[in-house]
């Protein structure tokens, strides 16, 4: 699915990486636990999370995870956005709950890793 479509479906703001909204990713993983996100091996899904700390960005940097959707109205700090930009990441922010965001994405064809 195009990232542009994901942003539209989730009524999300694009916080950085606007120039890459035509990129595609068909897989999604959601968790607020970064230790979970660090167990995904060589897969690089879209991450949906309500954990909005510097650790979210660092974890995605280590895991080569380039697309993060923050849910529950979580807004990253300028420092977090700056680090994400340095790493070429795309950050989206949606007011939807985790359940609603994941439900919509699943219904529209994004696939789970397992």
């Amino acid at each position, binding site marked *: 699915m195009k990232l542009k479509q994901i942003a539209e479906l989730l009524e999300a703001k694009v916080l950085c990486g606007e120039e890459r909204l035509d990129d595609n990713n068909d897989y999604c993983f959601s968790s607020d636990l970064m230790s979970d996100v*660090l167990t995904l091996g060589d897969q690089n899904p879209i991450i949906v999370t309500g954990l909005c700390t510097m650790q979210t960005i660092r974890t995605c940097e280590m895991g080569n995870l380039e697309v993060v959707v923050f849910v529950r109205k979580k807004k990253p700090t300028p420092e977090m956005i700056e680090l994400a930009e340095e790493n070429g990441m795309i950050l989206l922010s949606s007011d939807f709950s985790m359940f609603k965001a994941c439900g919509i994405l699943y219904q529209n064809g994004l696939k789970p890793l397992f």
Partner: protein
Amino acid sequence: MHFEYTVIEGDFVNAGSASSSVKKTLKQLNVSPAIVKRVVVALYEAEVNAIAHAYGGVVTADIESNQITMRVIDKGPGIPDIEWAMQEGNSTARPEVRDMGFGAGMGLPNIKKNVDQLNVQSTVGVGTTVEMIVNLC
């Protein structure tokens, strides 16, 4: 190549800066992305442990042509039962650590999965050294 970094107790904002620097170096050396990911995921969990469970410490990384050796050395409280700590789900993490997205007892088991050799040495009241070796080819 030898690298050394200092990690500071409770400094969650900078947690991962050593791993980030190692990642950039390995990328420059054209190490395959899958191996780089294993290296930095392990180092990052170990770095977070030194910040979360100990009083900070030192991270060293030695890169040779065929392997990387990483050590996370802290002068923390030590681990009384390493076997217990290595099991998934076992954790003594403070709520503050959980708020950072860690503290589910998955760090050490995931480190083990990602490295080729793991050696944890710990003395209660003295500190912990986590040594991790990953083959680069």
